[in-house]
């Protein structure tokens, strides 16, 4: 490593800080705009800090738009989907890792094939099927197609493979059932990755735009990412209010990231194919 106190070292640090500020500026500008009076958003030269500072845009957005409803929809959808993804994928990964049964290889290859086929190519039959079920604008329609997250099975299989088998064998001798072994040995030993996967899954579902955009047409069933695009149309060019809404929409996940930073990073590594 080069000495960081050298001239090129300092220049590099200065450039790094400059780039970081450039990169974060759009978020800064959104927050600043949201705290201005509507009339102050259009001044030339632009006002770099909000004077006077006002929270009126936030109260208005919360009062007038369906934001609360979309928060609820996003929260409900993300929680249930994440729970299902974790439980179903862990169970399936456990069976593939620790049990032998006919058709196991076929199942595994079928799951791997899922990586090759992009879900976006399936929207026509998927939507038409859900329409037949009467599931357009429903929580089932929002949730169930998003549970198919095969990568989690692969990750669980890999981690379950590396749990020492002595633990399992002694439990079998003690007469523990398969489910008991799963619950009392395999899951507790892998709680770290479970939290990482759960947080990353939650963020992914919360932020997902495409599927909710297709399957919800009534405003009361929309999630945050889709709902806020409707409000802009009715707000017109009221940028302070629009930015207040953008900030409110982004806040939960950004806050979650800042709290669980390490887990998020770990989860991203694993789902990208790098073991944590």
């Amino acid at each position, binding site marked *: 490593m080069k000495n960081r106190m050298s001239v090129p070292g300092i220049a590099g640090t200065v450039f790094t800080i400059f780039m970081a500020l450039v990169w974060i500026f759009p978020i800064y500008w959104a927050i600043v705009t949201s705290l201005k009076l509507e009339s102050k958003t259009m001044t030339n030269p632009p006002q770099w800090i909000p004077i006077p500072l006002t929270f009126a845009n936030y109260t208005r957005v919360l009062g007038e738009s369906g934001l609360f409803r979309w928060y609820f929809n996003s929260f409900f959808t993300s929680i249930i989907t994440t729970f299902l993804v974790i439980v179903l994928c862990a*169970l399936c990964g456990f069976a593939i890792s620790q049990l032998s049964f006919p058709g196991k290889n076929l199942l595994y290859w079928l799951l791997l094939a899922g990586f090759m086929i992009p879900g976006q190519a399936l929207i026509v039959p998927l939507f038409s099927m859900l329409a037949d079920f009467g599931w357009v604008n429903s929580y089932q329609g929002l949730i169930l197609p998003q549970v198919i997250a095969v990568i989690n099975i692969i990750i669980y299989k890999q981690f379950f493979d590396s749990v020492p088998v002595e633990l399992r064998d002694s439990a079998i001798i003690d007469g523990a059932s398969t489910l008991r072994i799963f619950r009392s040995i395999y899951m507790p030993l892998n709680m770290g990755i479970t939290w990482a996967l759960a947080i990353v899954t939650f963020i992914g579902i919360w932020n997902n735009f495409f599927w909710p955009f297709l399957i919800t047409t009534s405003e009361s069933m929309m999630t945050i990412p889709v709902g806020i695009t409707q409000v802009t149309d009715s707000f017109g060019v009221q940028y302070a209010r629009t930015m207040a809404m953008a900030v409110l929409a982004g806040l939960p996940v950004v806050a979650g990231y800042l709290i669980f930073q390490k887990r998020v990073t770990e989860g991203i590594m694993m789902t990208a194919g790098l073991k944590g």
Partner: protein
Amino acid sequence: MAQPTRQNRKKANETFSVAMKPPRSRRRKLLMWRDAALLIAPFTLLYLVFFIFPTLRVVQLSFTDAPLIGNGNFVGLANYKRLLGDFLFWKSLKNTGYFVLLTVIPNTLFGLMFALMVVRLKRLRSWVLAAFFLPNMLTVSVVTLIWQWLLDSQFGVFNLLLGTKFAVFSNPDWAMPAVAFITIWWTVGFNMLLFIAGLQAIPKEYYEAASIDGATGNQIFFGITWPLLWPITALVLTLQLIAQLKIFDQVWLLTRGGPFNSTIVMLQFVYREAFQNFRGGYASAISIVLFLVIMVASIVQFWILRSGRR
């Protein structure tokens, strides 16, 4: 948490085959099958219904004149023939390729650059990392709302500072580069994280040995960092290519494919034919082509990247 090591994994596999493969009795074998069936059933059921079935169905639909909802009549290859003569199809294919060109390699290089910038920091590290990564935590519609405001032709901060009234999203030449730039701003943090992990995995001894030998910064980068980082670079490029070929959200939210279809992309063409023109069969054929494009591009890239390893 048990750290997986090569030894215990190998051991696990050995014992797996010894202890589990030939169960003591027929009864135990059947019990294990039953347990396995119960464990895999919930996911497999959803997988069959929401993935395998639609996969088969989209192929079948592509040979019909089905509307969005319901069956249609078998029309053979008519949808595919029509596709070849459809101006919008070629336009969307070209635009998708252009978008891929504008994003995949720049996004990877920016990710690498930011990673190199972050890993040498000490006290400022977590702040700088957060600055580069935070956009990635925003949902796409928040990203587009923020950038629509920044690039607003009347009161957007860039136009005010430059004293111009440039409406970038209604300019056929600049709309796509703008969408590409916003995509990079949004997603580069993800690539950066992967590169940081890769850089940290390179043993420090290599750098120490190189600096003792008096290697220059360039020699160190191209002699150690770049070759050892190649697997990560290849991974990032692959993930990027597949992700960007499926572009839809940003384009839809920023330009709706316009102006004059200058930003219409393949997935949007699928959406448009299926959900706006209610031509499910035709949209299915486009979906198949999209799938094939992704498949071929991934394979070609795989070969290129493999030879790039040297």
